[in-house]
């Protein structure tokens, strides 16, 4: 089992409003080889509060990876993305857009806003599991994450 350099678990923030999807993601991440801690926020506003470590999230850990759904209540996922990538302190955090939409315009918009990558959630469970594992494998083991202390 690999750990990050300091032996701490990898912090992952999941921004997702669908409980079904959250549960799925959680279940899948449980099977990960890497020690990770999955935080969940249910809308865009909460996401920003979490990232700014404000309010109830004052003690939240800065995530090493953000999984972002696009269609969120209140603050839309695209706005969240824009804000993250505009924020000096947050813009280095890799954002993986994980959404149901396969629309060309959504893909373009996300990359315009500097999403690190865009993944469409498949219907098939097996595929979904494979994708999550692939995300984990790629972003947590292959790609180097910026260390921000």
């Amino acid at each position, binding site marked *: 089992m690999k750990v990050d350099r300091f032996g701490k678990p990898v912090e992952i923030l999941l921004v997702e409003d669908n409980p*079904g999807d959250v549960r*799925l993601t959680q279940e899948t991440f449980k099977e990960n080889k890497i020690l990770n801690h999955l935080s969940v926020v249910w809308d865009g506003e909460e996401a920003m509060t979490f990232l700014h470590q404000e309010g109830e999230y004052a003690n939240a850990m800065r995530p090493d990876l953000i999984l972002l759904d696009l*269609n969120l209540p209140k603050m839309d996922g695209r706005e969240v993305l824009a804000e993250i990538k505009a924020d000096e302190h947050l813009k280095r955090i890799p954002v993986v857009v994980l959404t149901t939409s396969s629309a060309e315009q959504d893909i373009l918009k996300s990359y315009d806003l500097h999403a690190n990558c865009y993944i469409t*959630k498949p*219907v098939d*469970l*097996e595929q*979904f599991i494979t994708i999550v594992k692939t995300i984990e494998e790629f972003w947590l083991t292959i790609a180097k994450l910026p260390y921000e202390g």
Partner: protein
Amino acid sequence: MTLRKKTFLMLGVTLISLFGVLFVISRVIVLGGFADQEKQDTHRSVERVLSALDNDLFTLDTTTRDWASWDDTYDFIQNGDEDYIESNLGDPTFITLRLNLMQYIDALGNIVFEKAYDLNEERQIPIPEGLHQHLSTDDILLNHLELDSSATGLLSLPEGPMLVASLPILTSEDQGPIRGTLIFGRFLNTTEVQRLAQTTFYSLVAHELRDPQMPPDFQVALSSLSEESPIFARTLTSQTVAGYALLQDIYDEPVLVLRADIPRDIYARGRTTVNFFMGALLTAVLVFGVVILLLLDRLVLSRLARLSADVNHISASSNPTARVSVAGRDELSDLGSTINGMLGALERSQAEYKRVEEDMAHQAQELARSNTELEHFAYVTSHDLQEPLRMVASYTQLLARRYKGQLDTDADEFIAYAVNGVTRMQALINDLLAYSRVNSKGNPFGPIDCSFVVDQVLSNLQEAIRDSSAVVTHDALPTVLGDSMQLTQLFQNLVGNAIKFHGENPPRVHLSAERKGKEWLFSIRDNGIGIDPQYAERIFLLFQRLHSRNEYPGTGIGLTVCKRIVERHGGSIWVDSEPGKGSTFCFTIPTEGDREP
């Protein structure tokens, strides 16, 4: 140039030409007639002069005859009596008879007496030199054989021309035998000529032929004078015409040209008359010309101009209700009415057109609105439907995984059906979405190299190709105007189908393109299972499938999307096929430049 100016010009030119022609004709005919008359008159005048001259000669002849047929002379010629000379041949005789010469010659040709006298200076002068030359015995002057013979006429001497009369010397009873010849002569000098002129009332001028100082007009006349036409007339000035006569001497040789200046009274009068007539004609022509022009203008030209101006004005103003003015009851007013009729029809059709335009704009607006709604609907549908689908599919599968082995085979089966259903549902939704996006999300057309697209497609399908051991070939494919993404979809669908629907043999697929007039005809031929011709059209309908899902997977939407794409590009698609003999899918795309996106 306006019609008015043209008409005026043409009419003016015609009338002037008419006048000109009449003028020329009149001059030629009338004055010609006068000129002829004049010529005749001139001839007659010259003849009159000549007859005056003849008169003179006759008088001379008579005088000479008187003296020649005289007993005294008869005797004198024999005896040469001095008395005779004294009493008859003195200076007074010369003066009285106006003679310059008297010659008495006997029968043997001896000169008994001769004397020459100058009438101007009134004194005797020597006998003219050349005279004696003429006095040989066979000369006319001396050769009097008969009692009544005589020789009268002109004699050309070095001193000038002389009128001579030569008669035989006889008794007073005109009896012979002839004892000699009497010759009287009178110089035809200027004085004589003037005298002649006075009697004839014409001014006369005479020149000897051999005169080196003959004036040019005489020379000109000379060239036209001859024995056959001894009289020649020539216009000298507008007032006078010169009549020339060629005079012959005694020996019938031309020696003298006489010119009589004859006033051209008749001709002058004729000319004046003609001029007056022409003047009157010109005035009449002008007056009538003006009248014609005015009438023409009033009746036709100004109305035409008005009509033309009206029409121009109307066409420039683009006022649909305007009409031309219509006055009178003839072709022009008919024209005006017809034009107005046309304008009325134009107005109506314009109103119609406008209405249709408005309708169409309205419809287009509706269409756009409905399209936007549809798009939105399609997007929302696919999007919002996907999510619950995923939930059902995912959790059913999770169930299967988590409780594998803990559930019975029935449960497994049930779960499998559920998941299968959801998966298909999702595929259907995606396909529907793709179908709706063909027109709404199409890109603007640009030149697309189809060879490049097909290579891309083969790369996309490489797994399917590998799995089925397919061989896909293509000819050189053209560049067409189109949407590259949609063309990729199109080719991928068709090639994918060709590979999918194979029989026992590995699929062999070939793509080709052919130019047919203004279109490219693409063909995708395969050696697959073929299609029953009775279904050849149905397969392009939405969700139509010819096989069960177990045999060949797919939602049945692929060909519908292909049809939509081909139609968006302005072409058409069909299939030629027979069961068991493979299929050839054909579609057309208009050649580059013919189609606007």
